[in-house]
Structures are given as structure tokens and as C-alpha cells.
């Protein structure tokens, strides 16, 4: 039975996606560790099929200020990828690469924005490359668009994009941590329904 809606995914499908997230984030963590010259840990990815409202709660509440980077996926897999950095993670990047303290998001300058974009670019590319390699699919990613604002407002963008497909949204969420300080960021990979099908088929999974 073809997948029509994210609700149609069963436990096995979710396990497959979790594993893809695992591999992608492992790769992304190594490139982050290389860039920052620091150890980076990842936790087991969470796969969640959520209502939009639950998603912003999972990110610290709708009004929590975060950095959001939006990339579109094209090629064999279409969809969106969002890289979301909590403030402590943005601080980690700026502090390690530029020696700057981040007290307030208002204070990030051009240089800081560009450092964050660069790190995100490399991390998301390694994430997607690992998944492309494993599935044998061609996945291109666009350069990231950046937005620093309330989590709810940033998430309205993928929510709207997928609103006509489902009232649920699938989030493959990976958490990266570095230093003894908790510095958390998440990658949300949101493949279109057709692309999910292709991923499953290419991995030999019966739909």
C-alpha cells in the first residue's frame, strides 16, 4: 500500500528513518568535530510524527528564540531540511570559530551569521551525503536560508509547506552536543511523501 500520509508509516518504516538519521548525524557530527576541533556527541535520533503544535513544544516552546536554517532537497529526494540551533549551540560556534561571546541574538553580526551558515552548510551536506550513499539516491541540497526568531514562527514555514499533505509532520530529529555544556542543535529532515516511498523502495523495504 503506497504511503499517502505520514500517518501511514508503520514502526518498521520509522526504524528505517531512525537508522538513516543515525547515519546522517554520525557523519554530520564528525564534520562538526573537525571544524570546531572539539568532541561532539550525538544522541539516538528521535523520529516523531507530530502535530505542528507539538513540534514547537519539543523545541523549547513556540516563543523560544532559535536560529533556523532552511534548505531544500531536490533530485531523487524532494523535501526540506531544517537545521535548528539553540542559543547555546550558536554560542559554541561563534565562540570556537571567532572567539566571540553570544549574549543576545541581536548581537550577531554579518561575520557571525556567515560562520553559522558555513557550519550548517557543511553539517547538513555531510548528513545528506551519508543518506544519499546508503540509499543510492541522488540528493541535492540548496544553500541555506537563515532566520533567527521564535521557534513557532520558523516552524510555520515547513508546517505550511506540508499543510496540504497532512496535518501531521514527520521530523527526523538529531541532537548534537559538544563540551560539558549542553549545546544542542537539531536537524529536521522532512522528505515529501513520494520521496519517502523511494527511500524505502531503494532500501528494499516493502511498503
Amino acid at each position, binding site marked *: 500500500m503506497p504511503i499517502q500520509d505520514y500517518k501511514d508509516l508503520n514502526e518498521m518504516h520509522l526504524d528505517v528513518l531512525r537508522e538513516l538519521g543515525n547515519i546522517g548525524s554520525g557523519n554530520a557530527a564528525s564534520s562538526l568535530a573537525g571544524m570546531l576541533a572539539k568532541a561532539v556527541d550525538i544522541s539516538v535520533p528521535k523520529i516523531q510524527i507530530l502535530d505542528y503544535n507539538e513540534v*514547537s513544544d519539543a523545541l523549547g516552546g513556540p516563543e523560544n528564540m532559535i536560529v533556523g536554517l532552511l534548505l531544500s532537497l531536490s533530485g531523487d529526494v524532494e523535501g526540506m531540511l531544517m537545521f535548528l540551533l539553540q542559543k547555546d549551540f550558536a554560542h559554541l560556534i561563534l565562540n570556537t570559530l571567532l572567539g566571540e561571546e553570544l549574549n543576545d541574538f541581536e548581537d550577531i553580526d554579518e561575520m557571525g551569521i556567515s560562520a553559522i551558515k558555513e557550519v550548517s552548510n557543511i553539517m547538513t551536506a555531510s548528513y545528506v551525503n551519508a543518506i544519499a550513499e546508503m540509499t543510492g539516491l541522488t540528493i541535492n541540497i540548496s544553500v541555506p536560508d537563515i*532566520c533567527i*526568531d521564535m521557534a*513557532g*514562527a*520558523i516552524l*510555520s*514555514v515547513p*508546517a505550511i509547506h506540508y499543510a496540504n499533505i497532512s*496535518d501531521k509532520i514527520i521530523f527526523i530529529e538529531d541532537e548534537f552536543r559538544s563540551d560539558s555544556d549542553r549545546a544542542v542543535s537539531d536537524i529536521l529532515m522532512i522528505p515529501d511523501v513520494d520521496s519517502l516511498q523511494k527511500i524505502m523502495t531503494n532500501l528494499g523495504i516493502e511498503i
Partner: protein
Amino acid sequence: MSVITIGISDQNVAKGEDVLVTYALGSCVGICLYDPIVKVAGLSHIMLPTNTGVTDPKGQMRFADTAIPMLIRRMESLGASKPRLKAKIAGGAQMFPAVTNASIANIGQRNVAAVKAVLAQLRIPILAEDTGKDYGRTQHFYAKDGVMRITSAKKGEWIW
């Protein structure tokens, strides 16, 4: 006094001292309707301009063209009268500057245009609007006086 939270693609009504709030509107639009005589307030948080055939009530709240008439019916059941309704709207921002994806390009702007068209068709005047630009907004709407308060983490606070 109770605070009633409205999620994305959701709506509710209030009277008396109650406050309606919707957090972190991005490209979505929050539509506040008010009947100043009976002091009945309604708030609808829509995501998209036009319903393409969704018939379940939860789904209809997602679209400007089906959500607004639905909100009016709910307000009427609390004693509001459609000819007395006034609107205040907020949201419809463009969160990411260079989005090339057709389904979300200018979606904020298209949402605002759709909301205005629906309100015009229903002959509901818009008393205030805080729309567009590039930042998220939290919207409070007070049933006691029909005041809309907008807060933005980046830009401050406005009373409309």
C-alpha cells in the same frame, strides 16, 4: 480571567475578561474578530489562503476562506452579530528571505491578501493590521475591549 491558547490551524472564541492568545505567528495569519456591543471576541490562526476541498472541521480551520466563516458562526452562537463585527489582523511575515520553493514563496503575503479578500466579501472592516515584514509575532486579543496586543521577540510590543 482565563487565557485561551490557540494553536496553529486552530480557532476559539471568548467573552468577559478572557484573553485569546496565539504564539509565534510566522507566515500564518491571526484574525481577531470582535463584536463591541456584546463584547464577544474570536481568534482564528490560519496557514493557507484557500481550501481545496477539506471538509473536516479541524482541516477547515487551516484555510482563510473556510476558517473565517466558521469563526463567525461560533461567535454568533455566543450572541455576536455579523454586521457589528470588526477585524484586526496580524502575521503573514516572510520568515526566510530567499525561499525559492513555489509552495511557500510569498506565502505570508498571499495569506494576508486572502484574509483581506474574505473579510471584504463578508463586509467586515479591518480596524488594524500588523502584517508582512520578516519577523514572528505573538498575538493577544482581549475580549473585554477588543484590544490586540502584538509582541515580537525582535522588535518590541504594539497595542492596536
